[in-house]
């Protein structure tokens, strides 16, 4: 029986799905409803000396009709009195003893102040503490949040103050607004942090109102950079989680954050070493109810893969992420267009011509398939552009413009243009020139039809070899000497 139960830095969790410190965890009433909906834990909206927020506070960017692909906020930490937040933590823990409540904390950079806050949060019953070293707006101007997270020494200092006092696990939340996230992660680890969480939001301006020329979110005609999150940031977050988790001097139990909205996103963070995941934007968009599919979907996937616990697969993808110099140069794939699935949109054609390597042609109906495949690899056998003088996109369009089309009349036009739309005409199905294909994936990425364009392995007849190995055996040096190209 697969289970979602897991232990994170010593904290027992009924599932790995936590709400991140943010508006969905503003008060006890919300968090209790979230627990009822199925969330295993919640990181309380950051507690500290109460602030005054601006109005408005959020903005987002939509993409192709989908709302909130990216989300941005200029809200600060909790605006509620600390004693109210702590009282509610106590209430929640009393009523939901098995659920995880983490107190997110941010106070001024004084040892005594941190000590006092840690004591109060733990007295209230928090299962752990998250140190907010990541908030990128407002608080950083007051010397807190990312102003701490961006300076490893500050990060280390404050973490060590907290560790002097804390009896529960201490999680340091990292900011992505730094050139190398491993530096503050290492600092936190040196100071004795029990876990990390990443990433906090990314500095952003989501957009400008083209009528008023004012940026969003609009505060009396002005705005300020905010913190970016939502689906758009997931790839950035995955990379940063991987960087930290692959670094022995930084790696700690990791609570993954950044664009997680469903079980697949969660699985990816867990595969890169995270032990729990935190969600905010998706819950702000659709409500707490989204957690049901996260659990349901993740469990079903685990059963299919034969994993019983989160630990069975946690971090399994980490070894598969390498530095570029350790990738096999002698591995080769080429694109294959499966004609039976092709709908004739020709997006692969225009993408290959304008955005890649001009190796997809519209000549299936005019003998293109008869061209022999030489088996050469365009990475080494460099040819002239468009070596077979195939029509360019502009020439294709010019031919089409000459076509005289008429509305078909049932009795007169048996083969009217609109009448055969169930089958893709052969001339609309593109063909890949294998000898020119560099195997970049672009066509398969733009193709709207699943499995229509696949990347097929071609045997180069060569054993695996990385660039690093080439350098080591001197082959690269020889090539550099011969060609004068320092990159070979």
């Amino acid at each position: 029986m697969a289970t979602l139960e897991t232990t994170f830095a010593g904290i027992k969790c009924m599932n790995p799905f936590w709400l991140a410190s943010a508006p969905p965890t503003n008060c006890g009433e919300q968090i209790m409803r979230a627990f009822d909906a199925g969330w295993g834990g919640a990181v309380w909206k950051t507690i500290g000396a109460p602030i005054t927020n601006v109005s408005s506070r959020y903005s987002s960017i939509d993409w192709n009709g989908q709302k909130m692909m990216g989300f941005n906020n200029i809200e600060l930490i909790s605006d509620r009195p600390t004693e109210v937040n702590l009282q509610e933590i106590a209430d929640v823990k009393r009523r939901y003893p098995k659920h995880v409540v983490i107190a997110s904390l941010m106070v001024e950079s004084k040892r005594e102040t941190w000590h006092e806050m840690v004591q109060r949060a733990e007295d209230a019953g928090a299962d752990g503490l998250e140190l907010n070293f990541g908030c990128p707006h407002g608080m950083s101007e007051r010397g807190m949040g990312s102003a701490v997270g961006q300076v490893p020494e500050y990060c280390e200092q404050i973490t060590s103050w907290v560790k002097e006092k804390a009896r529960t696990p201490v999680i340091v939340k990292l900011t992505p607004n730094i050139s190398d996230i491993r530096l503050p992660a290492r600092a936190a680890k040196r100071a004795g942090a029990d876990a990390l969480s990443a990433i906090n939001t990314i500095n952003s301006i989501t957009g400008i109102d083209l009528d008023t020329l004012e940026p969003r979110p609009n505060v009396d005609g002005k705005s300020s950079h905010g913190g970016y999150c939502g689906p758009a940031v997931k790839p950035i977050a995955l990379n940063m989680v991987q960087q930290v988790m692959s670094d022995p001097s930084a790696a700690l139990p990791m609570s993954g954050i950044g664009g997680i909205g469903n079980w697949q996103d969660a699985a990816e963070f867990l595969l890169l070493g995270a032990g729990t995941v935190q969600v905010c934007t998706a819950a702000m968009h659709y409500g707490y109810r989204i957690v049901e599919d996260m659990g349901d979907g993740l469990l079903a996937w685990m059963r299919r893969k034969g994993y019983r616990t989160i630990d069975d697969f946690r971090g399994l993808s980490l070894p598969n992420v390498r530095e570029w110099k350790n990738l096999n140069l002698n591995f080769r794939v080429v694109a294959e267009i499966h004609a039976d699935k092709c709908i004739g949109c020709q997006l692969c054609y225009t993408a290959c011509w304008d955005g890649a390597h001009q190796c997809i042609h519209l000549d299936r109906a005019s003998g293109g398939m008869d061209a022999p495949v030489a088996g050469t690899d365009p990475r080494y056998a460099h040819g002239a552009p468009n070596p077979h003088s195939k029509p360019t996109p502009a020439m294709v369009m010019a031919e089409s413009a000459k076509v005289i089309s008429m509305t078909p009349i049932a009795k007169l036009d048996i083969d009217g243009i609109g009448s055969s739309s169930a089958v893709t005409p052969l001339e609309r199905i593109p063909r890949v020139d294998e000898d020119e294909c560099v195997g970049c994936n672009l066509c398969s990425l733009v193709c709207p039809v699943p499995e229509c364009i696949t990347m097929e392995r071609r045997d180069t007849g060569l054993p695996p070899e990385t660039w690093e190995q080439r350098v080591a055996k001197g082959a690269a040096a020889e090539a550099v000497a011969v060609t004068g190209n320092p990159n070979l």
Partner: protein
Amino acid sequence: MSESTSFFEKAPRSAQVEACFPDLHPPFETTAAVTEAHRCLYCFDAPCMTACPTHIDVPKFIKKIASGNLEGSAKTILDANILGASCSRACPVDVLCEGACVMHRYNKQPIEIGRLQRFAMDALHASGAQLPFVPGNDTGKKVALIGGGPASLACAAELRRRGVDAEIFDARPLPGGLNTYGIAEYKLPLKESLREIDLLAQLGVKFHVNTMVDAKKLEEIDKKYDAVFLGIGLGAIHKLGIAGEELTGVTNALDFIAGYKSGAIQVAPPKVVVIGAGNTAIDAANAAVRLGASEVHMVYRRGPEQMSAFTFEYEHAKQEGVKFLWHMAPLGLAGKTKVHALELAKLEATEDGSLVPKQGENVTLAVDLIVLAIGQATHAGFLSGDKVKLERGRIVVDRATGQTSAAKYFAGGDCTNGGREVVDAVADGKRAGIGISAWLEGQNGDA
């Protein structure tokens, strides 16, 4: 004679008729249009674009709707099809752009191209903007266009954009031909056709309405103009050739449709029979239902599989409540001054495929109105004297330029293609406009 005031303002209005013919395909609300626009895959060399006789760059105008560039969207449409608004409503999109949409092979609904096109064009009209084109530099050349239908309108627009004077001659009080008078009101209201024509007038196209061009008038025109475009459409609807056709209560589909569209006909009598089974017959039958007839029959001598109407039109007629009498042919009409009964013979196929009446199986239908829709004759007579070469009554043209056998004469639309859609006429007119302009330029060069 030249009209400079708005035809749109002169459109006859009948609240009663308007109420009977609400939009068959209602306009998109903005969010729905943008959502639909986002669904478009943005195909390269899109099949919808090739399927469109005027080659509108469909993905381009759709993506401009998605990006909120409605001005650019309308311009993209108009650049290819100056009657983009009419066509968005009147086109049989199922067999054109939407029929060619790759979504059919993607197990999804095709993109609603027609409604998106209307959305962009409605936005342009609502903005009160003029056409996004200016007349070309004056070449000093003058072209007469005979007939004011879509072929001539499209040809005239191309000529104006190339600095050639374009003067349209039309026999009716309002220009637009079948675009104005012949398309079911629930697809294209008469006033919408005129709204579009007013924009052409702003481009400098001149209109001579109420001007019948006969052979003599054509001779006058021939002397005054550098070239002539024939956009004369087809002629009168065929007669049945049976007794009683002169009775009151016998009309033809074009007169019936033009009658209600211009407000002259406000109601249909209770029992209506339409003879014929083409698209025009269906428009007439549906109109009769909407104008209050309680029983509308269509009579066709063959079966549904041979009818020339588009399948979607047939389905629509069934939904409207039209009843079909297949394999029947009119034998005679009864009535003193006004028709009151139609006698029909049941037909059966013989071994060689020809249809013969079944003996003793005649049917008599009580009728108040008979509408003939059995095809249109040609205008061959008007062009007698070998002015231009004809084939089966159609003017023979070079497809790419619209040029006839007489170098100075060009033609397009129904009079050349035998009767197709508005968009076919627009495409013909557009090619001819470009063709005429190029020919005139060549003439200049020779001089």
